[in-house]
């Protein structure tokens, strides 16, 4: 395994903040947000302490899988501009410590979820951690251009776990939230990879633009966007979303499709020049601006969708009954 030899010498003493960074706090915040939405949408009364414990377990589980991901991918991270400052490639934390942190936090989060809430939620949490750490990180990421499509399931499950924690069941609407995030993932990550493809190529990660080229990637983004936009409207027809959700999903979906069409017609990803590609995540070359726009809007749109559902359910606004 590559990670065992990626950085044999630790150069600086590890601070507790380095271990916190292993948990990818920014990704964790999105996981917490979607899981909380699922928990609230379940509509079952839950003691506030137990609700907080459920969210904490999901957050810690997400952090644990991130630590396992960083442990395994230390060799890849060391080659990419975006990730070379992480604690392992930078030599601030040893691989064995990251592995131990990931395993211990996984066990604690799953066991606490099972004992405090229910074992369905705990089982789903364990599956999510294993899927991200083993199926995505150790297998798909290095072997297929469909890595983020299939691996996206791990990022899609938190609302289902939140729903299961509150209700002890996972009805169709919980899986609808999962499906929305699942279909959102490919356009989101491929838009990013269009202007960071040389970084992935240098690390040997078979992202879509590296393997199939920029043009095929833009076409794939458009296809997924055409499927994603109508799917986002679906909760308004299944008794999950209300009038506000319908408005946000339709308007945002239209903007998403316009940006996807503009990206499809652009030449984003075709003029990658590693010598000038040091602009960070949001500052990009002129030709890649359409990719950056879709990437940025995809985050905003998903946040708006879930925030609207959250507000509607917390405020007690009645969902639409368009289909009986």
């Amino acid at each position, binding site marked *: 395994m590559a990670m065992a030899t990626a950085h044999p010498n630790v150069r600086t003493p590890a*601070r507790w903040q380095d*271990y916190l960074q292993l948990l990818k706090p920014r990704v964790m915040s999105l996981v917490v947000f979607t899981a909380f939405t699922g928990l609230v949408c379940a509509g079952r009364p839950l003691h506030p*302490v137990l609700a907080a414990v459920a969210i904490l377990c999901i957050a810690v589980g997400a952090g644990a899988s991130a630590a396992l991901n960083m442990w395994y991918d230390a060799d890849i991270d060391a080659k990419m501009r975006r990730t070379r400052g992480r604690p392992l490639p930078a030599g601030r934390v040893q691989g064995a410590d990251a592995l131990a942190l990931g395993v211990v936090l996984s066990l604690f989060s799953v066991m*606490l979820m099972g004992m405090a809430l229910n074992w369905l939620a705990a089982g789903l949490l364990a599956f999510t951690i294993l899927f991200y750490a083993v199926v995505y990180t150790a297998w798909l990421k290095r072997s297929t251009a469909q890595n983020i499509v299939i691996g996206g399931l791990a990022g899609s499950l938190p609302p289902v776990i939140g729903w299961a924690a509150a209700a002890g069941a996972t009805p169709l609407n919980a899986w609808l939230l999962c499906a929305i995030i699942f279909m959102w993932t490919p356009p989101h990550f491929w838009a990013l990879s269009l202007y960071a493809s040389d970084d992935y190529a240098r690390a040997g990660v078979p992202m879509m633009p590296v393997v199939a080229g920029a043009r095929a990637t833009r076409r794939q983004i458009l296809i997924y966007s055409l499927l994603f936009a109508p799917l986002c409207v679906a909760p308004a027809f299944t008794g999950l979303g209300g009038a506000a959700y319908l408005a946000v999903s339709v308007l945002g979906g239209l903007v998403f499709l316009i940006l996807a069409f503009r990206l499809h017609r652009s030449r984003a990803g075709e003029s990658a020049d590693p010598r000038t590609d040091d602009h960070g995540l949001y500052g990009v070359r002129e030709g890649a601006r359409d990719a950056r726009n879709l990437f940025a809007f995809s985050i905003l749109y998903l946040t708006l969708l879930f925030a609207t559902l959250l507000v509607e359910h917390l405020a007690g606004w009645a969902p639409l009954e368009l289909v009986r």
Partner: protein
Amino acid sequence: MSDPRREGEAERKARRGRNLALAIGLALFVLLVFVVTLVRLGGNVAQRPF
């Protein structure tokens, strides 16, 4: 694992910070399990048939 007798000021400070964070984390976990037990036990006692 570095030898505590040979470590410099930076290492000692970092180790102290790590130990403190671990202690706080463990204490919070114990407190959390205690509170969860009270909540779950309380609910079950309230529903107990007399």
